């Protein structure tokens, strides 16, 4: 099947490129309906990946890429359950979400998040599973979870930690485009810039410093920063559920759901 039309998302495979379009108003909030459809997509992706070399995730809504988890659904559902049952439900939701996002993260093709407008919370985390994030100049990224007394629950922290640095390498490698030194420094790849004619001198000084460290330790440090953070992703779920059990979270969710504030994502 090369095409699927859902209520929250649709996908289409054409010329080796899968386009996954998000289209659940108001801004692609990630709730149970969207997760059901993401799971179907993740299953389909196993076969689609044989025919495709790239996946693009984008939103067709003018409001933005994705405003994050559906907090209204989370609040209303948890209100209908006993505390223990609500926490169990949240854990199951997170584990299902992680399975989907891990599948996209590990998919054997190049994945691209095409972001416009807001990519907040879970929306930012969805973008972070992609190999490349392409954004228009009006895009905005945010992790607002702490205002609810929570941490990002869809893998945001481990992936951001992983990606700061090597996402730039993926961009360079997979697109083949060139960056100037200003760009390289702004993304953290170039740590120092010196005047013309001084670069060899600086390189030698840096090499001398590096040579002071044990080689085995330096290699271990390099390896530590590269693996996919499955253990941290699992730990994130534990921490999220632990935090979710606190009364302040319920109060924070209620405040958000009932808020008419123009900046409801701020405490």
């Amino acid at each position: 099947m090369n095409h699927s039309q859902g209520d929250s998302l649709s996908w289409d495979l054409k010329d080796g490129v899968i386009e996954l379009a998000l289209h659940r108003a108001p801004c692609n909030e990630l709730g149970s309906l969207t997760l059901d459809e993401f799971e179907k997509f993740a299953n389909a992706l196993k076969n689609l990946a044989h025919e495709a070399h790239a996946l693009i995730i984008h939103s067709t809504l003018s409001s933005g890429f994705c405003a994050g988890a559906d907090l209204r659904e989370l609040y209303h559902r948890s209100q209908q359950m006993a505390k223990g049952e609500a926490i169990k439900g949240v854990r199951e939701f997170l584990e299902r979400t992680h399975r989907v996002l891990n599948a996209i993260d590990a998919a054997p093709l190049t994945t691209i998040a095409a972001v416009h407008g807001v990519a907040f919370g879970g929306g930012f985390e969805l973008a972070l599973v992609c190999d490349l994030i392409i954004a228009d100049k009006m895009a905005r990224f945010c992790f607002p979870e702490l205002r609810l007394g929570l941490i990002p629950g869809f893998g945001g922290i481990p992936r951001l930690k992983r990606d700061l640095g090597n996402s730039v390498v993926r961009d360079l490698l997979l697109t083949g485009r060139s960056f100037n030194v200003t760009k390289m420094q702004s993304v953290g790849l170039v740590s120092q810039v010196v005047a013309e004619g001084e670069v060899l001198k600086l390189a030698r000084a840096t090499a001398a410093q590096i040579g002071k460290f044990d080689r085995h330790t330096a290699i271990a440090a390099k390896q530590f920063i590269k693996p996919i953070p499955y253990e941290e992703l699992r730990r994130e779920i534990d921490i999220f559920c632990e935090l979710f059990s606190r009364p302040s979270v319920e109060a924070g969710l209620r405040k958000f759901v009932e808020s008419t504030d123009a900046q409801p994502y701020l405490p």
Partner: protein
Amino acid sequence: MPPDQTLEEILSLAASHFKVPREKLSPDDDFFKTLGIDSLQTLDLLTRLEHHFQIELPDYELQGVSDFRTLATRIQARL
């Protein structure tokens, strides 16, 4: 940039982007009401202001700010 010019540029940008006649906007207007914008549109305005003035304006700087004049002073402080 003189403060009056900052204020005028904010008013012009808001009028143009949200398609409100410039003469309908006054410095002391509550821009949420005058422009009729929601939380996502507020973020959009914030981003446009950052690009226009080439500044970084943290969201929390706008908390409690609802009129153009105060908004202009916050932006002016970062120019």
